Structure formats: C-alpha cells, structure tokens
C-alpha cells in the first residue's frame, strides 16, 4: 500500500470510529445526560442535543428557508461557506508563508536578529485570537489605500496569517541552519555568495523541515480563519454559518452539526492540499 493510500485509509477509519462512538453513546447514554449538582458530566442524548448522523446528512438536502421557493439547500450553504473560508485560509496561509519566510531569511542572515526576534515569533502563538480579532478589525478598519478599503475579510486573512507565519518561520529557520560545517566550508571554498549558498545549499536543505511546518501552518490558517470569522462576525464563511445554525438549534438541531461537518471537511481538504504539495516536492526531488 502506498503512503498516500495509507493516509486516506487512516482518515476514513477515524471518521468511521467517530460515527460509531456517536451512535453508540446516543443509543446507550442516559437521555437526560448526567449532572452533578449543576455541573453537566455527560451530554444529553435526545434528538435535539444529539441528532442521528443520518438526520445530519439528510438535513444537507433540505432547503435553508422552508416554504420559500428556490431557497438554497443547507448543503449548498455549507459548501459555499466552507469554500469561502478555504479561500480566506489559503490567502492567510500564503501571507503567513511570505511573512514567515522573510523573517526566517532575515534571522538566518543576521544572528543578532535571530536572538532578538525568535522568542517573539514563538510567543506570538500564545496570544488568543479571540483577543486579537477585535484589535485587527479595529486597526484595519482605519486603513484605506486609494480605492481599496479594509474589509472584514481582510481581518480574517490577517488573523489566519498570524496563526500560520510562526511555524513557517521557525521550521524554515531550522532548515536553513541544517547544513553542517563541511557543506558550509565547501561553499566558502568556492567563494559562493550568500545568495548562491541560499539557493544551492540552505533552501534545498530546508525542504524536509518546511513540509511539516507547512502542515502545521495550514492547520493554523484554517482554525484562524474560522475563529476569526466567528469573533469578527464576518459573513459568508463556515464560521459565521456555525453561529447562525447554532441559533436555530431549537427548530433544526441537525443544522449546526452539518456546519461543523463542513468545517471538519474544510480542515481535511487543507491537509490534503499540503499532502499533494508534499508528494509533488518529493517526486521532483527524486527526479531532479
């Protein structure tokens, strides 16, 4: 079995296990859950709290606004929202990769900068996005360049980039430092310029470090995009849809789970895109 097939198999197996756990608990768990005083220990299992998985799947085909002709289905709304969030997350990942890449190059070039900057790059990831989101939206809202004005989507992209630049910067920097003394002296002996050393030695040596970093960054970008949509109230994405459907939980409890399912698929698609890139790089490396 190939590596890719094994990975896909693992994802499918995980989904099946999750589905089985869900339905088993729903069947066997107490209908009203279990509480200790006011603290809920086990969730309720009635259809409102935990709809059957097939109810979640069939709700995808139901119209979003019932009784209105031509209303789009819940599934279409989820798909549209997920694609929109994916677009923002990929833009964020791209921005994060550029920022992280430039930071790594600067830190590699200037030792002093590495000592001063690296701790902040790592620490930046401990800032909660919930706290960051209103700040970005607030500061960004003031910006206006020519005819282009800051949009809520720009806030989402920036927050998404904030969660993805750090793994890239740290991973790439480690990779740039990977070549040993022998390789560095070899390049020095050939009077190679910094640029030549970068292109022919440090960047190729960094590729194996960059791919796992990209995987982390992609996950960060997706989480960042969804949480940023929720906390800035940006419309059009899956994050906002989760909030909207959660408010409809009394009338259609399955909807919020459909939206969560969309978010999960979104994460899988992002991971899949990185895996494809990974495979392409590996194949090129073998042929070059």
């Amino acid at each position, binding site marked *: 079995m190939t590596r890719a097939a094994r990975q896909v198999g693992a994802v499918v197996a995980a989904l099946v296990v999750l589905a089985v756990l869900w339905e088993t608990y729903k069947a066997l768990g107490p209908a009203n859950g279990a509480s200790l005083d006011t603290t809920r220990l086990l969730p309720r299992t009635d259809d409102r709290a935990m709809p059957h998985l097939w109810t979640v799947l069939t709700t995808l085909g139901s119209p979003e606004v019932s009784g209105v002709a031509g209303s789009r289905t819940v599934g279409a709304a989820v798909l549209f929202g997920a694609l929109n969030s994916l677009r923002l997350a990929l833009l964020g990942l791209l921005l994060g990769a550029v920022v992280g890449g430039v930071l790594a190059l600067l830190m590699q070039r200037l030792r002093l900068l590495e000592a001063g900057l690296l701790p902040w790059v790592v620490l930046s990831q401990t800032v909660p996005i919930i706290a960051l989101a209103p700040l970005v939206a607030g500061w960004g809202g003031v910006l206006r360049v020519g005819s282009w004005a800051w949009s809520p989507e720009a806030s989402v992209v920036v927050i998404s980039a904030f969660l993805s630049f750090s793994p890239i910067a740290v991973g790439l920097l480690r990779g740039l430092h990977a070549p*040993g003394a*022998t*390789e560095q*002296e*070899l*390049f*020095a*002996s*050939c*009077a*190679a310029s910094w640029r*030549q050393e970068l292109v*022919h*030695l440090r960047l*190729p*040596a960094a*590729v194996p470090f960059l791919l796992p970093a990209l995987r982390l960054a992609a996950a960060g970008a997706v989480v960042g995009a969804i949480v940023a949509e929720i906390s800035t109230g940006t419309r059009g994405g899956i994050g906002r849809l989760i909030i909207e459907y959660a408010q409809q939980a009394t009338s259609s409890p399955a909807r919020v789970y459909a939206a969560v399912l969309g978010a999960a698929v979104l994460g899988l698609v992002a991971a899949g895109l990185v895996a494809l890139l990974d495979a392409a790089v590996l194949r090129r*490396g073998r042929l*070059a």
Partner: protein
Amino acid sequence: MSPPSAKAMVEVSGVTQRFGTTTALSDVSLTIASGEFVTLIGPSGCGKSTLLRLVADLLTPTEGTVHVAGKTARAAREAQDYGIAFQQAGLLEWRTVLRNVELPLELHGVGARERRARAEELLEVVGLADVADKRPSQLSGGMQQRVAIARALAAKPALLLMDEPFGALDEMTRERLQDELLSIRAREGTTVLLVTHSVSEAAYLSDRVVVMSPRPGRIAAVVDVDLPLRATGTPTDVRESPEFFAATTVVREALRAPARVASP
C-alpha cells in the same frame, strides 16, 4: 616580509592562530613548491586542520601571512585556485552524483554543457561514470569520497587540499584510493597538501612529510621521502620496498620525539 616567490604554490610565513585563549598554531612557516605532494601529520589537536583551513582562507591568521599561487589566500580562494575535500564527503543529497561534481563550476558561472563535460570526465577518472545519475546516499563511503575528490578537482585547481579524506574508510578501500589519488595527481599535475594521522599513508603518498607537535601547534620536523620504485614499480612493490619502511620509521620517530628534532 619577503614577497611570495613565483615557484611556491603555498607560502605560509610566521603564522600564529589563536582561538580565544587556545593557541592552535604558533609561528608556523611552510613553503610548498609547485607540483609537490606534502602531508601534515601529528597527534590529534596539533593544528593540522587549522593550518589547512588557513591555506584555504576558511580562517584568517591571527598573525602572519598566507600566500597561495602567488596571491593572498583570499584572492586564491576567489579565483578557485584550490579544491578541497574533507573527512566527510559533504555531498548534497538533493543532487545526483554528476551534479555534485558540477557544483564548483556552477558556482563560478561555467556554462551547463561545459561543466557537464568536465564532471563526466572526472567521474571517468575516479571510476564512477556508471553511477553518475545516482543519489549520494546510494553510494558506499569509499565511492562518496571519490565523488568528493572529483568535485574538488572540478575547477582544475592548481592545488588540492585534503583533510583526512580517507580517515573513515577501511584499509583496503583506503589503499586503493591512495593509488587513485597518485595517478590523478600525476595526470592533472596538481600540487597536494593532505592532512593524515596515518604514518604509512604519509610516507606512501608524499614527497615531504611535515610532522607537527601540539600545545602550541608547531612544525616539529620535515621528512623528505624518496621512493624510487614509484616511477617503475607497482603499488605493492612500493609498499614493500625498504625505502618505504625507512621513510615510515623516520616519520614515526619524529612523531614520538618531536621535542628532540629541531624545527627546520
């Protein structure tokens, strides 16, 4: 300070090298004539690699001067007057064997066709033409080291610097590579400065063996080696000749009692 002489390939004069409080080399002077094969031998930590790195301009001496091919060491490095091979082959895993050999030429802007032709020629010389398209990790240690030597020779350097290039290899491979090195050197007319800790390797390869002593590193003795069978005999003849045994004995004694031998 005397100007660098025209015939000298390497001229080290009055060089002292300090790393913080350690003095790795103290007032070392050494001249290597064009076409000569010189080895540096001495106990670990006596400054052999340091001296080689100074010649390669990978280090700048604390005191003294280093000239290579009639230029400052720096100018010689920039002109690719020397090629260097280390104990570790240091091959780039993402390049094929052929493209590893091409690297020094590529860094100096030599056109693709020309550098390819030169690399193919060199792989032929070191007997690795059939693995040109392999990855370095697919090769044995001895083969990797041969690729590193081919790479060091790529830019047709007048001087070949080697830091224990056969140190990690088994005895059989080591002897075969020593013979290959001698024939390459005869063919390319390269001056060689080689660091080793093997007495027999030093005696077998060199025209002159420079024996060093530690703390602080200095030259304890210089032993001239003359093996007449090199021109006429087989490698085995040379290795079994009385002159070879005599040379190893002199080198070994110089190593044992460095203090008693006057610095030349």
